[in-house]
């Protein structure tokens, strides 16, 4: 599953730690989601989309292999 978290973070100019604090998860969790090592739950995906003020589909995209 692809994601645009890094781009959205850059737009908002926030670090992984700041995003982690908002989502109430660890920085490493944000990092592993960002580098696509870990697929988050719907709750975290929705929280992220709400924080960036975009739709979940814009933040997370399915790949051919998914």
């Amino acid at each position, binding site marked *: 599953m692809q994601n645009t978290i890094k781009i959205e973070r850059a737009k908002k100019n926030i670090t992984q730690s700041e995003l*982690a604090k908002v989502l*109430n*998860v*660890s920085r*490493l*969790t944000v990092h*592993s989601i960002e580098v696509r*090592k*870990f*697929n*988050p*739950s719907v709750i*975290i995906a929705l929280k992220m989309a709400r924080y960036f003020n975009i739709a979940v589909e814009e933040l997370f995209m399915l790949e051919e292999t998914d």
Partner: protein
Amino acid sequence: MKRFVLFMDNKFNIPGLIVSVIAFVILIILHRLNYEYEAGWRDRILITNHVILILGLLSIMLSKEIYDDERVQRIRYGLLKVCYSLTICFIMAYLGISTLDRVEFSIYIILYIIEFVLILYQVLFRIFLLVNPSWIFKESKRSNSSFYLLFSCLLFMIGWLIYVVIQYKI
């Protein structure tokens, strides 16, 4: 998503670590001293010490992380499955060896196995939190491997008990 819900708060982490380290140091000292206070004293004190060490390690294992999010829970769940299976397999193997090859059964070996797996869990858990191994996050296709493993261990244990009863006419 499968999770392992813990019942101990994060604050149990440090006392567990302190208890484990102290118990471990005392264990080494007891092995070095090698003296007898009264008959059976050594076994009593050693087993008590082992139990305290195991309790300390369990306290660390069953307490939450500062950020106990879904990634941490997933890693913990995956690793606990592996460690529980390892413990059962090691104990079964030792019981098998001690019965079939007539190796003298020792409770210390069982305690060492439990301690080894608990320490292995701690080391692997800390490493996995940093490296995020991909296999642990993969959604398994309802494979019943853990069920088969536990079932075979249970079968082995029943077989072992039958063998012991027949062999030694308990």
